[in-house]
């Protein structure tokens, strides 16, 4: 088994996997602002994400409605402007619960799960990639083969099998989501480390007597940060999709706790009578995913001038 995986999972031209140029000297403030202006996607995506995060964090301030307690008098009440009232701006669901409140509180769960999963996946993946790239040899072989195995399963199938066995606790969900994400980080970091370890400043650090661990964390890791950041932000999109997909199938966040995927699944039965039940949570998911994707794309253009266009 060669150390370089020419395996089924290598993506030669997929942008995020290719080694990024080492980051330039940190730009001064005005220069950074100018660069941001040239990549408006970062701002747009970031603003969308920030707005959604703030809205769900401040849920109690934005709505007085209870996201869980049914109120049957309000059952299937349409959104404001379409026969509903301003008290329930997005209408009410099949149990008369305020949809806006459920979206905001459900967002807390989805965003928290996705964020934890991205952090865990990034940590594990970066560590695995550093080990594989720096130590090489058997460690490298082992890590890369495990990555191959992981990639052989459709993510969602693996996730539902595991969740079915270990249950749908938040910890299990975060673990399952993270499991789907570490490979890309590991592969990218490994590829970067293989390039960086040949560079002169690494040799210089060693010559100056820096320990191996210090060299890795002070000199190699910081220079792989750009692609890690890019991957992490587009992975946030994937995690939100995966979590809401699991919840949609009934294998994620469990009712009565509101979740976007769960709301969509409930709304499916009312498509012909109350379209807003399924439409609103889907729009929320799409918005977050769009924000994270735009942010990821923008960061890629911003941080790595060699990629993309």
């Amino acid at each position, binding site marked *: 088994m060669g150390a370089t995986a020419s395996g089924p999972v290598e*993506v030669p031209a997929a942008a995020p996997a290719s080694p990024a140029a080492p980051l330039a000297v940190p730009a001064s403030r005005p220069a950074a602002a100018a660069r941001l202006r040239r990549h408006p996607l970062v701002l747009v995506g970031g603003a969308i994400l920030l707005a959604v995060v703030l809205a769900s964090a401040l849920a109690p301030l934005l709505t007085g409605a209870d996201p869980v307690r049914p109120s049957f008098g309000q059952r299937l009440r349409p959104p404001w402007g379409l026969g509903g009232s301003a008290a329930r701006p997005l209408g009410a669901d099949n149990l008369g619960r305020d949809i806006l409140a459920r979206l905001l509180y459900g967002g807390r769960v989805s965003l928290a799960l996705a964020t934890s999963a991205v952090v865990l996946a990034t940590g594990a993946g970066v560590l695995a990639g550093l080990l594989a790239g720096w130590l090489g040899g058997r460690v490298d072989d082992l890590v890369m083969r495990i990555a191959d195995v992981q*990639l*052989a399963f459709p993510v969602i199938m693996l996730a539902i099998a595991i969740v079915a066995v270990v249950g749908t606790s938040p910890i299990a969900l975060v673990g399952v989501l993270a499991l789907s994400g570490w490979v890309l980080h590991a592969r990218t970091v490994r590829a970067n480390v293989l390039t960086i370890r040949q560079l002169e400043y690494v040799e210089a650090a060693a010559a100056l007597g820096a320990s191996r661990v210090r060299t890795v964390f002070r000199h190699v890791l910081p220079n792989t940060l750009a692609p890690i950041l890019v991957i992490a932000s587009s992975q946030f999109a994937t995690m939100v999709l995966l979590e809401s997909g699991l919840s949609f199938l009934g294998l994620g966040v469990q009712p009565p706790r509101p979740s976007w995927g769960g709301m969509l699944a409930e709304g499916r039965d009312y498509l012909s009578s109350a379209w807003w039940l399924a439409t609103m949570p889907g729009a929320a998911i799409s918005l977050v995913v769009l924000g994270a994707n735009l942010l990821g794309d923008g960061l890629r253009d911003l941080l790595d001038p060699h990629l993309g266009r």
Partner: protein
Amino acid sequence: MRRYLLHRLAQSALTLVGMSILVFVILRVLPGDPAKMLLPEGAPESAVQELNRQLGLREPLHVQYVLFVRSVFRGDFGQSFQYRAPALAVVVERLPATIQLTLCAMALTVVGGVAIGIVAAVRRGSRYDYAGTALAVLGQSLPSFWLGIMLILFFGVTLRWLPTSGFQGWTYLILPSVTLAAYPTALVARLTRSSMLEILSREYVRTGRAKGLAERAVILRHVLRNATIPVLTILGLQIGTLLGGAVITESVFAWPGMGKLVVDAIFFRDFPVVQTVLILSATIFVGINLLVDVLYTVIDPRIRYG
């Protein structure tokens, strides 16, 4: 060439071994008492004991694993208790519906994704480019289950043009395959675009134009062919996305394939079926990607692994 193929074959075999270990760990080690899980709820104690003995669940783990692999090689994936039939037969029966759906989605992905990518690259910076890119970003952001439901709402409930669930003829294929294809199509479109742009800047493209080749010939024969390699890799990998996406799409459209089967199986706690689907889909994925690697050498004669 032959060495390369042998190498890839060995690598694939190793991946399959790893896969079997992972499935074994998930379904036999993670649950405290797998025999209880592999039997219908309320099965008599004697049946639990019997299965324990049969699967060797009292043996040490490595012996259990060997027994597990041996039974898989015999094609014995256990009995589905939801259908009271061998799990493998149950899954294989559902396979054609999934294959039909995935192939249809794959065709849409290849045709739609590559076409959008070519147009966007050739007419770079034009309205078409922006429209294509916007479409691609959107395609990557809409959750398939939501897209599917919105298509049902629009074409099924409001317009009443297309059937929305079940499996009785080709019109039933349209909405599910569009839903399933959206994400990979977007991915392929973006990749084709960037890959084409890269090739378009090469010297030999300028040479081709300079010697008076028709633009169509330059694009189709020289640029597209060279831009195909990364696209092909992604397409191979999309098999996994499609098989996984089928789980959700089939559930949305009540499509009687493997994906819906596995979701239903989980709610019935029909773990023999879950295990079979996992093993089968991973094997398909590994096989197809091996095939893709072999295809490279056909498409691009420069590639000679050795």
